[in-house]
């Protein structure tokens, strides 16, 4: 459950940013003839609703209703007592509180137009109980999958989101630079504390304690011995924008070499050809509501190649003279004909 700083910044996310995003969504709704759009959120799938309102549920669940005309409102399972907090940290016209959020949302939509056409983002993945309640609350509503409509808008980052990702990347870099101490837990504590002191909304830390034995990341519980070389991964959220960074603790000369190779490979995205010769690679980004959906990579087959202008996080593994090295950083996919670029430095203090 989310326990970092959740606060709205009118500088980083001014009203104009949300207005511009809502205008684009409403224009697409007009074309699709949707009277309302419904987007579900919980702390695993916050990135659709937070993009339009700034709201991130630290707990529980909600749906955002975007009428084609009128302001967006939230129907939240969080109790009424949390209403002032929601209004403080997000930008919505109203917040309605009920345990049956699907039922209430449908009733509200139907009150405006009994046979409204309702687009639902990630309709297939919507929790079954909420889908059943949407049908019960609006028997004459027609429910449509609005995933493609929303993904076409959500996938490409605007300047505000790029700035938030840069800030999240900076938090991740500084946090991974704070990985100090004699034990792995000391280092993880350093990363965790630094990220949260810098205002991270969330941080997930995983480690590969010994790169000579295994290159897969895991969450650490209890005491774990460190190998000669090891790696840490920080997944950082800052005001609804998520990035992943990976730092391998190995010789500086090796890091310089692999960092250059990694940056070169990232430049070739969305083509994965730059990663030929890597052991594995993965590109993640937001398509609808999950902050870091798998897009393309060595385990993914065809996948969903990121669009020009998309923010992504890239992880890769390679070997230098038999030494396994893991890297990861956020990047911005270049416009057609232009190279993609990292938005974080890969060389740590």
């Amino acid at each position, binding site marked *: 459950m989310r326990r970092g700083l*959740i606060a709205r910044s009118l500088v980083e996310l001014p009203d104009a940013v949300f207005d511009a995003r809502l205008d684009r969504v409403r224009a697409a709704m007009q074309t699709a003839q949707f009277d309302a759009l419904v987007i579900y959120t*919980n702390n695993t799938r916050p990135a659709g609703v937070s993009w339009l309102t700034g709201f991130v549920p630290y707990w529980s669940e909600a749906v955002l209703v975007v009428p084609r005309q009128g302001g967006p409102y939230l129907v939240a399972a969080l109790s009424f007592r949390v209403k002032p*907090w929601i209004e403080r940290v997000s930008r919505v016209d109203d917040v309605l509180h009920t345990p049956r959020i699907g039922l209430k949302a449908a009733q509200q939509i139907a009150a405006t137009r009994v046979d409204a056409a309702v687009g639902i983002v990630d309709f297939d993945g919507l929790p079954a109980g909420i889908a059943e309640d949407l049908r019960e609350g609006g028997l004459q509503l027609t429910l449509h999958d609005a995933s493609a409509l929303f993904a076409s808008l959500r996938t490409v980052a605007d300047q505000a989101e790029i700035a938030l990702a840069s800030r999240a990347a900076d938090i991740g870099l500084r946090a991974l630079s704070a990985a100090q101490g004699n034990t792995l837990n000391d280092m993880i504590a350093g990363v965790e504390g630094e990220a949260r002191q810098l205002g991270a909304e969330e941080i997930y830390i995983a480690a590969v304690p010994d790169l000579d034995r295994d290159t897969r*990341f895991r969450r650490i519980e209890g005491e774990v011995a460190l190998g000669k070389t090891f790696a840490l991964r920080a997944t950082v959220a800052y005001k609804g924008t998520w990035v992943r960074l990976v730092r391998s603790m190995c010789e500086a000369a090796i890091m310089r070499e692999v960092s250059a190779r990694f940056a070169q490979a990232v430049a070739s995205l969305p083509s994965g050809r730059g990663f030929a010769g890597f052991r594995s690679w993965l590109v993640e980004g937001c398509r609808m509501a999950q902050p870091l*959906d*798998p897009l393309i990579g060595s385990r993914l087959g065809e996948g969903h190649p990121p669009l020009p202008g998309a923010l992504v996080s890239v*992880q890769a593994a390679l070997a230098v003279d038999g030494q396994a090295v893991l890297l990861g950083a956020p990047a911005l996919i270049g416009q057609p004909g232009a190279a993609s670029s990292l938005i974080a430095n890969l060389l740590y203090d």
Partner: protein
Amino acid sequence: MLAEERRARLVAAMREAGIGHMVLYGNAWQGDYLRFGADFGILEGHGIALIAADGEVALFLDSATDAERAEIEAPQVKVHLAPDIARVVGARLDRVANAHIAAAPRRFLPRWLTDATRSFKLDDATAVVDRLLMHKSAGEIAAVRRAAQIADEAYVEFLRAVRPGRRQYEIVADIEAHLRRKGCPDNFMIIGSGGKDVFGMTPPSERRIAAGDLVTTELTPAVEGYFAQICRTLVVGKASEAQRRAFAVFVEALEAGIAAVRPGARAADVAKAENDVFRNYGLGEYTTSQWTRVRGHGMGMFADSKPHILEDVDTVLEPGMTLIVHPNTYHPDAGYIVLGDAIVVTEDGAEVLCKTPRQLFEVAA
């Protein structure tokens, strides 16, 4: 070992209910059902575990990062990376469509899997798994007990971290760093600070701690996936007489609630015992949903599990259940106050797991 024990209990419950295949859903918010069967603490995306009658587990995850983590953290289950998770799981279920298949918690499953046009039908087995989640084995209680000890230690750290001028999120950062240093990977906590203008706890804000503040928190660290909670309140500076008098009501209510815990009692009886104390002081209004959510709740693989301690919840308490009793609410003379201890229901009452004194703490202003 705990994972094997849980899976054996799940398979036995499936057999008893005539369930051939169990579908368990989880995400980072509601991950307990999935973890019970698959022993994986999900952080990102959706997870669905298919449990066969022979105990074989297939775990499907739509996050590539979590799928890699599951391979190493849950080596006894077969992990599948499935970006289109509903359809991949659906294809698996097509193969066993003639069997009795049930799901928990069914209402959270991707809608596509419950659509009437599927070849299979998913019955709701949430109550079957809820019963397993509520009734802890000795090994599970031991994990909750260790988590409660970590919660006590973390509250000592909290007392050190709260100083005038510090922002709420900086305090939480200290606690989270402390827990990671101790090898504790997960925690849930919320915080409140201020005076009579504060009506509850939320994630941390940028508000700075000030002299005279009441600072409330609930800390909920996890050990091997089992959460234990503690709730305490402190004053920055010297507590006023009004704050002391108000806090005494909460101590009395907590003691009354814990005294009501015994096998055969209902969750409602515990809530009523707590609320009656407030009523006796003319504060009955502050036991309603306008001011407070629950008077405690179950604890285990979810930080806020069943049963909820409310006067309309008839769940009967049985030995092995782990709960927190917390009469947290607003007091008109002092503001929002929290006080709560983790307990385990024993054969003849309750064992209190939290050792932190039930006092209104004071830190330097």
